[in-house]
C-alpha cells in the first residue's frame, strides 16, 4: 500500500510540487471556460449575478419546467426520473430544468422544500446559481455529455438542508465546478464520476460556517486525465467530511484538497479520506492539505491506493470466494458506495 501524507502548511510550496507532478503525469493545465476555475472567493451573490448576466427564475411549488431536448417526451422523462432517481411524479414536489439552454446561466431562489432535477446531454456551458433559504432541498444533476459539458454551480445556503446528487458520465471532455457557501446548514453531496477519455475536471469549493458538509464520491477513471479538487474554508462549529473511493486504470488522476480552518474555528472537524484501487498503467497523485489555525480543531487526512484491500480480500477468500469474484465484489462495492 502506498501512502502519501500531507506535506505541511506551505501552500505555495505544495502548489509548486503539484505543478511538478502534474507535468510528470502529462497533465495539460486548462482554464475553465467559465473563468471561475478554483476561485471560490468569487462566491458572492451580487458579483456573480452582475458578472454572469444570469436569467432569474423563481422555483414554483407544484410546477414542472420541462426543457430538455434529450428527453423530448414526457414519458421518456418520467421513465428516467422514476427508474434512475426514484422520484414520484405524483407525490413529489419538484422542478426539472435543463439549464444548458441558458448560456449565461440561471439564478434560482428556493425558499420552500423542493426537489430539483436536471439533466444535460449538450455541449453548452452551464452556469446555475441557487439561493436556498429555510428549506429542505434535493438536487439531482445528471450529465452524460458527449461533447464538452461545462458546469459551474454556485450555492448560497442558509438555515437549510441540501442533498446534492451529481452523476457525471462523460465519454469526452468535461468540467464540473460547484461552489458552496453554507450558514447554519447541512449539505450532503453524493457524486458518481465516470471518466473515460480526454480531460475531466471536478472542482468543489466550500465556505462553511456553523454547518456540516458530507461529501461522498465514487470515481472510475479508465482512460482520462482526471483532476479532482476540493477547496474549503471551515469556520466555527462546523464539520467537513470528504470521502472518495476510486478505481483507476490506464489513466492519470490528480487529487488536491486544500482545507483551511481559521482561528475562530474552535471545535470544528475536518476529515479527508481517499481510497483507491489502482490497476494497469494508472498514475494517481494526491495532495491532501490541511491548514489548521485553531488548536481545538480536529483534522485528519488519509490517502491510499492499493491493488485491493488486503483485509477484505483475505476475508472473502476465507469464505470460499475465488480471486476473480473477490475483485468483482470489491469493485461493485466501490461503485455502489456513493449512494449508501
Amino acid at each position, binding site marked *: 500500500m502506498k501512502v502519501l501524507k500531507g506535506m505541511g502548511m506551505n501552500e505555495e510550496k505544495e502548489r509548486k510540487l503539484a505543478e511538478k507532478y502534474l507535468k510528470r503525469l502529462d497533465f495539460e493545465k486548462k482554464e475553465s471556460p467559465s473563468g471561475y476555475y478554483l476561485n471560490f472567493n468569487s462566491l458572492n451573490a451580487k458579483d456573480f449575478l452582475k458578472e454572469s448576466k444570469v436569467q432569474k427564475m423563481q422555483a414554483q411549488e407544484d410546477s414542472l419546467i420541462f426543457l430538455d431536448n434529450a428527453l423530448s417526451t414526457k414519458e421518456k422523462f418520467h421513465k428516467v426520473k422514476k427508474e434512475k432517481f426514484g422520484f414520484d411524479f405524483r407525490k413529489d414536489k419538484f422542478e426539472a430544468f435543463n439549464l444548458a439552454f441558458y448560456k449565461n446561466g440561471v439564478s434560482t431562489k428556493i425558499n420552500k422544500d423542493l426537489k430539483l432535477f436536471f439533466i444535460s446531454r449538450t455541449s453548452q456551458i452551464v452556469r446555475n446559481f441557487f439561493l436556498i433559504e429555510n428549506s429542505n432541498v434535493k438536487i439531482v444533476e445528471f450529465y452524460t455529455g458527449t461533447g464538452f459539458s461545462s458546469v459551474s454551480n454556485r450555492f448560497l445556503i442558509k438555515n437549510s438542508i441540501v442533498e446534492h446528487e451529481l452523476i457525471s458520465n462523460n465519454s469526452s471532455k468535461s468540467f464540473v465546478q460547484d461552489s458552496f457557501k453554507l450558514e447554519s446548514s447541512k449539505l450532503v453531496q453524493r457524486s458518481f464520476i465516470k471518466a473515460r477519455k480526454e480531460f475531466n475536471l471536478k472542482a468543489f469549493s466550500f465556505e462553511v460556517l456553523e454547518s456540516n458538509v458530507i461529501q461522498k464520491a465514487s470515481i472510475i477513471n479508465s482512460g482520462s486525465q482526471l483532476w479532482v479538487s476540493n477547496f474549503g474554508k471551515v469556520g466555527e462549529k462546523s464539520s467537513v467530511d470528504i470521502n472518495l473511493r476510486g478505481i483507476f486504470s490506464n489513466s492519470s488522476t490528480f487529487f488536491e484538497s486544500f482545507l483551511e480552518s481559521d482561528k475562530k474555528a474552535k471545535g470544528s472537524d475536518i476529515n479527508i479520506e481517499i481510497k483507491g484501487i489502482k490497476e494497469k498503467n494508472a498514475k494517481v497523485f494526491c495532495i491532501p492539505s490541511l491548514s489548521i489555525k485553531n488548536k481545538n480543531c480536529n483534522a485528519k487526512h488519509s490517502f491510499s491506493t492499493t491493488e485491493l*484491500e488486503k*483485509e*477484505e480480500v*483475505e*476475508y*472473502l*477468500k*476465507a*469464505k*470460499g*470466494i*475465488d*480471486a476473480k*469474484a473477490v475483485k468483482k*465484489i470489491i469493485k*461493485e*462495492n*466501490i461503485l*455502489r*458506495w456513493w449512494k*449508501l
Partner: protein
Amino acid sequence: MILEIKDLWVKAEKRNILKGISMKFEDSKVYGILGPNGSGKTTLTKAIIGIQKISKGKIIFNSKDITKLPPEKRAKLGIYLGFQQTPELEISLQSLLFAIDGEKAEEKIDKLKTFEEELGIDIKRNLTGLSGGEKKKLEIFEFLYMQPKFAILDEPDSGIDIDSFKILVKAIDFARKEFNPTLVIISHYESIFNYIEPNFVYVLKSGVITKSGGKEVIESIKRHGYE
C-alpha cells in the same frame, strides 16, 4: 483424524509468532484453544485457513496436504473460520452467500429463518457500521449456513450479550445435531467452556503449546491462570 498441524512456524516482522506447533483434531469433536492476549491464537487460525504465510510446517486435512492450498479452496473443502474481527464491507451477508452458492443460497437461508429471527439480525444489511456483537451474530448465522466439516470460531463470545450468548450455545448444539463438525473454539476466557464442553484443550502461550489435555486443563487455568 480430520486435521493435523505438524511443526508449524509463523514469522512476522522478524519475530516468531508460532514456534513449532503440532496439533491433532479428530472428527466431530470439540476443541478449546486458550491463551492470553498475544499468544498467537488468531495467527494460528489464519494459518489454518490459509491467509497467514507460514515459514515452516505442514497442515494436513482429511489426509491431504493443504499447506500450499489457497484459502478459497480450503474453505470449499469444508474448513470455516469465524473471524475475530471482520473487515468493514459494503456488502450484505445475504449477497455474500449468494456469491458463494448462487441461487441455492435462497433455500439454505430460508431453512435458517428461525435463527435469523432469534439472533435479531438483518442479513440484508451491509457489513459496515456494525457493532462487535452484531458482527458476531452474523458469523453465527454464517457458520450454520456453511455447514463446515471443520469450524474454527475465534472468540465467538466476545462482545455479545447474555441473550445472544445463549443463542450461540443453541446454535452450536444445532450444528452438532445437524452436520456435526469438528469445532475449535478460541478464547482467552475459560467461561465459554462451562456451556460448550470441550473434548480436548490446548493452551497456547508465546507461540508454543504449554499445556494440553482434557477438561482438567481448564480447571487448572481457572485456579492458576496461564502461568
